[in-house]
């Protein structure tokens, strides 16, 4: 029995990675849920918007690195992030102007807009691969570890180490700052309130003199910013590969729907629910279990419920359970 080492192993292999992954999913799901709440369709291009924003940020990061500009212990990508956001927001506004606005004017059904976003997704997908290629790109720099496993062991004298990567710390801090700002904006500012009003009751919002074009524009800018931040944080934590970002669409949608589509707080909760489930179901618990149970009962196998290759199956399973038993999600969003 060694509870302390079990806890440290749990924190190192499950809690910290899932927290960082959850924060990335939550930011992605926030963008999806905002678009759903205001523009009333599921934006399939969101994953590739993340890839696009990350690509722009990477290109500027490389340029900064070649100029010798750095951000100390923090990754240089954070310096390039505002530029990435600006370019992505401009791209999103342009897409809206050229494509989505046409269908909005026709009062197209949501399913048509979903198909339109699918088209936008393929185009963005192609643009990203043309510009940066399909391979893995590594752009993380700055401090590698906040605490390394070795330091932790010498500090505490425990057999297990707890490593917190710099990128994980940056992810969690950035994500919570961004979420805080977003909630402040939606709850306290005139524009934020008008967005909530528009999402709640479009006709009455129009009667109250709220300008729908402005609401839509602000929504795209915020969604693009959230997508870029989520994408860059994910890229710093793991690495950047366009195909992986396309695949992220599933856990992100699962997070948004589990939390309740259209509900920002739900998107955040959903992000963490999905991330913790994925990590916990695919983690090999052998080490943690061995510390807890008496020696004679130590498991021989890996005590892993599913191989990591199946992690998307976990998102899918949760998604289906929620749709069957709680169609409006944990925080009473709109039913799909």
């Amino acid at each position: 029995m060694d509870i302390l080492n079990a806890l440290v192993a749990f924190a190192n292999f499950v809690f910290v990675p899932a927290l960082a992954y959850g924060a990335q999913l939550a930011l992605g799901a926030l963008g999806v849920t905002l678009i759903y709440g205001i523009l009333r369709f599921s934006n399939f291009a969101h994953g590739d918007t993340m890839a696009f924003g990350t690509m722009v940020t990477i290109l500027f990061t490389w340029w900064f690195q070649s100029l010798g500009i750095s951000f100390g212990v923090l990754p240089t990508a954070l310096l390039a992030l505002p530029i990435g956001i600006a370019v992505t927001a401009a791209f999103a506004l342009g897409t809206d102007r050229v494509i989505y606005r046409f269908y909005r004017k026709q009062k197209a059904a949501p399913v048509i807009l979903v198909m339109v976003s699918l088209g936008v997704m393929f185009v963005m997908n192609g643009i990203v691969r043309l510009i940066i290629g399909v391979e893995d790109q590594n752009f993380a720099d700055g401090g590698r570890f906040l605490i390394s496993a070795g330091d932790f062991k010498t500090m505490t004298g425990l057999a297990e180490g707890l490593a917190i990567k710099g990128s994980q710390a940056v992810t969690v801090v950035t994500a919570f700052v961004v979420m805080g700002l977003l909630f402040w904006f939606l709850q306290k500012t005139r524009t934020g309130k008008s967005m909530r009003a528009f999402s709640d009751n479009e006709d009455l919002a129009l009667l109250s003199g709220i300008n729908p074009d402005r609401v839509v524009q602000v929504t795209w800018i915020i969604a693009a910013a959230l997508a870029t931040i989520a994408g860059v944080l994910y890229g710093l934590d793991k690495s950047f590969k366009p195909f992986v970002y396309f695949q992220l669409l599933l856990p992100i949608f699962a997070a948004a729907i589990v939390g309740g589509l259209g509900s920002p707080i739900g998107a955040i909760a959903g992000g963490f629910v999905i991330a913790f489930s994925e990590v916990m179901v695919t983690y090999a618990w052998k080490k943690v279990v061995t510390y807890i149970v008496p020696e004679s009962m130590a498991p021989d196998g890996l005590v892993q419920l599913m191989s990591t290759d199946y992690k998307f199956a976990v998102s899918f399973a949760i998604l289906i359970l929620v749709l069957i038993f709680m169609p409006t999600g944990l925080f009473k969003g709109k039913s799909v």
Partner: protein
Amino acid sequence: MADPYLIGEAMTGGYGGADILHSCTIAVEKGQIAVIVGPNGAGKSTAMKAVFGMLKLRAGHVKLDGEDITALSPQARVAKGMGFVPQTHNIFTSMTVEENLEMGAFIRRDDFADTMAQVYDLFPILKQKRLQPAGELSGGQRQQVAVGRALMTQPKVLMLDEPTAGVSPIVMDELFDRIIEVARTGISILMVEQNARQALEIADKGYVLVQGANRFTDTGKALLADPEVRRSFLGG
């Protein structure tokens, strides 16, 4: 007599396809209450929507304070001083009472704290519940939020589409009292009502519509006294 403050004159039109309104005229004088009554499907709400610009007129025109506003959008009419309370979906359910009022004042760039205080004076219960989501309130309180939201622009004309639909008789009486109070502040009121008898009792002017056309038009009292109106529309 001069033109009424707001008049929809000889309005003809519908939602595309067949006409619903046939040369229908609705008007309200400054600070007075005008009520539109009639059987189901008579085009009461349609007439109201026509005055507010929510459907296209094939003939006729709408004038506000002598100015022809037939071509203006509903939003532009709000800016001109018209307030409209739809029959359903007339509040932001997920937002607090206070935020509902703020959204009502969205087009105002000046300080609207005074107007909000006036609305709270008129509906004291809303002040108590101002930080509660409007969707959690009772039917009568939601109607008060809806009226309060429309009053935030300081309209000169307030249009109410069945404000007492689905509320209990006691709440209904209270709502009518409040509506009279609003009219006393100089705001003209144009409303559609199912509860014809009570509505005509407080009306300066009543319009009985049948099949999209004016059948009877008179003061509220005279309509209540008219034996034919009583027999046909008020149940004897």
